């Protein structure tokens, strides 16, 4: 009977919280974004499984489209700006090819001809919604793959990190004394290590695949400054009267910590977790951008490739190589953050407007 009541209680609580969450515009926007990317992450294997997409052509890492695209042959002028082109970079456009380039390769052509080639990267077309990269791989497919990576990485490292820091922070707050000192010094030690160089070192002697990176990021995050933050939250809970009454009625220290303090710190921990996902996604993209990871494909890798191949400084000409990936990172990280904000409204009744 008691379990039934407990379950109904939990269900009702969940329903109420969900209603509150729906109230928050920001939270719902965030959730929509997260769901959208989640959908993208699932979409890719589905497309392959149902054979809507042929793996040979559309695989994010090893795909290659052998279909040729038609381009118009033009002659690029010597002086700029002209009527058609503003600067040197504007000529030839992505759907055009410079006649001098062809002539240099010994190909005979006239201005105005249609030239068929499959020069990559190719701009967006009906076959490739977001175009292809310089190796002929479909960008949209890469985007979806990156979505999988982002979710995996983000969630795993966030869970590990917050799990560790909540446990440690609460313990530090509750047991105090030597344990507290030790944990504070430990997080000092972790804080002292500059993260980027440190990660570089790790990647130098260990292969960092997605899972490994998730664990490393999570542990680093969990053992560092967040322990201090959680500890101060737990301290505030500790001084509340109900903790004292729990002790008076004879609860053991461990039991009090788990059944009383942890549940009160948990909502905040959940919040931090959501925000950690934001950080993890951003970290991965930065690390990939610096070439420090061994992942096959992720949004960070996409940007890394476009930078090392020199497409970034071409401005908006090859936009599909830069913008989708960058935008995805921003949107998903932001999405999780907004969800966190929505949860904020739910768990912090003092902050509610009603």
């Amino acid at each position: 009977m008691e379990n039934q009541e407990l379950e109904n209680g939990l269900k009702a609580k969940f329903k109420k919280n969900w209603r509150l969450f729906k109230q928050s515009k920001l939270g719902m926007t965030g959730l929509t974004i997260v769901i959208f990317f989640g959908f993208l992450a699932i979409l890719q294997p589905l497309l392959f499984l149902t054979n809507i997409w042929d793996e040979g052509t559309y695989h994010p890492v090893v795909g290659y489209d052998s279909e040729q695209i038609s381009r118009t042959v033009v002659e690029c002028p010597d002086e700029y700006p002209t009527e058609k082109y503003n600067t040197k970079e504007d000529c030839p456009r992505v759907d055009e090819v410079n006649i001098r380039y062809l002539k240099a390769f010994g190909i005979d052509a006239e201005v105005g001809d249609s030239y068929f080639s499959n020069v990559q990267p190719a701009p967006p077309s009906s076959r490739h919604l977001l175009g292809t990269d310089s190796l002929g791989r479909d960008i949209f497919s890469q985007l979806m793959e990156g979505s999988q990576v982002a979710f995996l990485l983000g969630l795993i490292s966030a869970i590990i990190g917050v799990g560790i820091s909540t446990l440690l922070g609460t313990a530090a707050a509750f047991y105090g004394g030597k344990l507290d000192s030790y944990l504070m010094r430990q997080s000092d030690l972790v804080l002292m290590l500059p993260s980027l160089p440190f990660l570089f070192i790790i990647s130098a002697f260990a292969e960092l695949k997605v899972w490994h990176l998730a664990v490393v990021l999570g542990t680093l995050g969990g053992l560092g400054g967040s322990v201090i933050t959680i500890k101060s939250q737990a301290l505030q809970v500790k001084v509340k009267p109900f903790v004292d009454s729990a002790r008076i009625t004879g609860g053991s220290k461990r039991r009090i910590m788990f059944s009383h303090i942890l549940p009160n710190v948990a909502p905040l921990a959940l919040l931090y977790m959501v925000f950690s996902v934001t950080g993890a996604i951003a970290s991965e993209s930065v690390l990939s951008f610096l070439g420090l990871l061994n992942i096959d494909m992720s949004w960070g890798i996409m940007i890394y490739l476009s930078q090392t191949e020199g497409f970034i400084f071409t401005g908006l000409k090859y936009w599909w190589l830069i913008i989708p990936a960058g935008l995805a990172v921003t949107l998903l990280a932001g999405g999780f953050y907004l969800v966190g904000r929505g949860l904020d409204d739910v768990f912090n009744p003092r902050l509610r407007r009603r």
Partner: protein
Amino acid sequence: MLTYTIKRFFEMVIVFFLFLVISYLLFNAIPGNAFSSLLLNPLLPPEAYQKTIEAFGLDKPLLERLQLYIVNFFKGDFGYSYTYYPRTPIDLISERLPRTLMLFSIVNIVAFYTGFLVGKILAWRRGSKSETWITIGSVFSYTVFYPWFALMMLWFFGYKLDWFPLGKFLVPEKWYDSPYSSDEVFYTLILFTTVLSFLLFLVFIITRGIESIHNRRNARLFGLVVLLFISAIYWTNGEAELKRFYAADIAYHMILPTFTVTLVAFAGTALLTRTTMMEVLKDDYILTARAKGLSQKRVRDRHAARTALLPVVTSFIFTIITIIDGSVLTESIFSWPGMGQLILEAVVQEDIPLAMATFSFIGVLALIAHFIADISYAFLDPRIRIKSES
């Protein structure tokens, strides 16, 4: 208070020691060493590599090297940099540090101040249209992919508009005949900025005593004008006048990176301030302040924001710790040769003495900053002050 400080100090020493050991072991764990490139050079005889290794003591076993390093470290001898031989790490750090400090102290102060202002406004205007838009803007700036954003800024302002230089902190041609080295000019700039900030702070403190709000505002404006005047005098006389041209060059190069980083960095503080303020806003004394007939703005700034300042200041101090770590990316993108680049270089090239020295530097900074944070918290909240004294 004293016992706490002493205890803390001992703990910090122990932590630092551990830190040194761990770092040293980590660096040595990287396969290869700084000189393995010598092996690839076909013009060098194979003995060259061996001789170099021996000269730098890299042939000794790990534990022996570790012991030697620690002993030497506490004697003050940090060795020579492998890649910049015969320069010592101290030499290199003192060259690079002012550059990073100059750029990133300004950036951090501006970013925090902006963030605090925005956060204040966000919390106050909860539920209004402007809140939604400012929040979206802040979230975007917080989560935007920094390397991409920085590169875009560089491309747009530096290349397309040609308003700002594309990198580095000076234009070599202008400095060709300069009697001053860039370090000297940097030192002058840093000195100037520090003194100016200190004076500004003084102006603020002194005018706190003035009762009437109107008079207080006028007094502060007056103080500002006086400071501007003093600055003008400083830069038009004596040695400073001669350096002015070069100082201006450096300052000019600082504008774009500062602007870029501030845009990305302010959001974190803004969001933190907002959250703290909102907790504070539900407190009863805010209601009392409004009942007293104070304007919304005064209640917000004088009562709510003041209490919200505490966690923001703590966060600021923690950011100082990561000042060098955070500078790595920016320095790479803007080609600003500072500490961040130095560390990355040292790590990549396996220049162990240099890497160890720079890591130690950051380590000490982190420990001290944490300590200061703990103390300043007590200072800002008089409730804690009383408790810690009893």
